[in-house]
């Protein structure tokens, strides 16, 4: 790798190490997510028991729910609190003094944030839902393995694109915070949007039929829906390839949009404080 990536790699590493330290928070989050996952699994099972036809089997829905709990913190639902503080105090001006591309710098921070915390949460969650539950004889309610090696491979690719997409979203949010001088509005709007449209609330295929065309093409689908459906085999073959293509398209589109917005915001940057 060329010398130009070194600073970005360094900021990624520093943030990553900082974030994996919050063990108590991770433990509390883990317990909450187990509880939530259990409730969701029981609710969906109850709905599906009386269903005449369903676009998803119980198996696919259960996998989707547990993966959704495991990778919850991958969702870009808040701007970076530290950048928000910099905007409040005016320290954000220092970010402009660094001999680095600000977008790349913030993007590297975002990647650390969207990998460190999710990893801490995902590992115990996957072990609990995927190993402990089947061992306790509750395999029907647990996380099954991916549907075959091709699904596993494509799932891996899709998760990588998912991190890139989530980081592009996060950087866009950070830039919006600079433009609006406060993180409050951005976070209020973004949380619900990300939860509903990524499929975390209800798996996207279970939403009403007339919403499906919109759901397929909107950018949030690439955050959770695409990799999870590939995992359980709900999306396979050309459908999976097309979904990966849509995911990649949104990464490029959001990075370009983020750069454009950052260019505009930074040329007329307002700083507060003193």
């Amino acid at each position, binding site marked *: 790798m060329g010398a130009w990536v070194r600073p970005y790699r360094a900021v990624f590493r520093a943030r990553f190490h900082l974030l994996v330290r919050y063990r108590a928070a991770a433990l509390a989050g883990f317990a909450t997510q187990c509880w939530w996952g259990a409730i969701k699994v029981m609710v969906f099972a109850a709905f599906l028991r009386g269903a005449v036809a369903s676009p998803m089997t119980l198996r696919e829905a259960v996998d989707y729910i547990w993966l959704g709990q495991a990778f919850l913190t991958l969702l870009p639902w808040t701007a970076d609190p530290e950048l928000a503080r910099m905007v409040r105090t005016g320290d954000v001006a220092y970010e402009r003094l660094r001999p680095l591309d600000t977008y790349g710098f913030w993007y590297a921070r975002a990647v650390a944030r969207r990998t460190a915390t999710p990893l801490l949460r995902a590992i115990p969650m996957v072990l609990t839902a995927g190993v402990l539950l089947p061992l306790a004889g509750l395999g029907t309610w647990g996380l099954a393995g991916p549907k075959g090696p091709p699904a596993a491979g494509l799932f891996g690719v899709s998760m990588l694109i998912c991190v890139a997409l989530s980081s592009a979203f996060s950087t866009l949010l950070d830039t919006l915070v600079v433009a609006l001088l406060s993180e409050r509005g951005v976070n209020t709007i973004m949380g619900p949007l990300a939860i509903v449209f990524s499929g975390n*609330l209800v798996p996207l295929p279970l939403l009403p039929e007339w919403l499906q065309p919109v759901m397929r093409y909107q950018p949030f689908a690439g955050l959770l829906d695409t990799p999870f459906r590939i995992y359980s085999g709900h999306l396979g073959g050309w459908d999976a390839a097309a979904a990966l293509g849509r995911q990649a398209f949104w990464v490029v589109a959001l990075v370009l949009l983020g750069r454009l917005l950052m260019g505009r915001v930074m040329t007329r940057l307002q700083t507060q404080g003193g």
Partner: protein
Amino acid sequence: MNAIRLYGRYIGASLRSQMQYPGSFLLTSLGAFVAPGIDFIAVWALFSRFRQIEGWQFGEVALFYGVIGVAFALADGLTRGFDIFGEEFVKTGDFDRLLVRPRSTVLQLLGYELRATRIGRLAQATLAWALAVHLTNIAWTWQVWAILAFAVAGGAALFAGILVLQATLAFWTVESLEIANTLTYGGVEAAQYPLDIYAQWFRNFLTFIVPLGCVSFFPVAVVLGRADRTGVAPALAVLAPALGFVFFGVSLWVWRFGVRHYTSTGS
């Protein structure tokens, strides 16, 4: 000055201070309206596809949702002092100041702040309740309102009890543990559906340990004319929310135990 008038003064001061930032107040209220609102979107989306859940209709589930939502909004608005107790009082040592005042610590913490922004959550739950009134064929007699008012009061007491227990834990752990969120937010999540759709162990937990089912499922099922789904006599089901008050009483007793074991971190 008696306790109730003093509490009124506390609340007045708290409201005046929150209204100093009207923009922030509006945005936060909006957030408190939207965030739980997406739970209702989930209920609606699943019903629009599957029509029913174990024989329960959308309007009926909307009433479960509304009752537990209103109860939680009330408790959450009133008990802010307990919610942030670890960070704001134990960690800083500020609890010492509460102890030297000639008033009960519970009263002082209740008066710490009335979170007016919870009006958003309250409005959201009330809307779900109104939808239930519209969609079901209940005769809304005063008896029905009395049963549901008792359910809401019992539910609010139960949630307040959970928050008091969370605060009590902070005497030992210093920081507030978010683990109580599983019972508060997670409890709302669980109780927005009728209890009989869940696995037996989970129903037992929500009936005997943390009696969330008693404060909403039993009385609401009676109101909906589905007392048969509860497995207990209607008269008993209607009185079940009393367990919410019992839970609150127990939590206050545990609180006093915690206060006796309090060691100041202050300097």
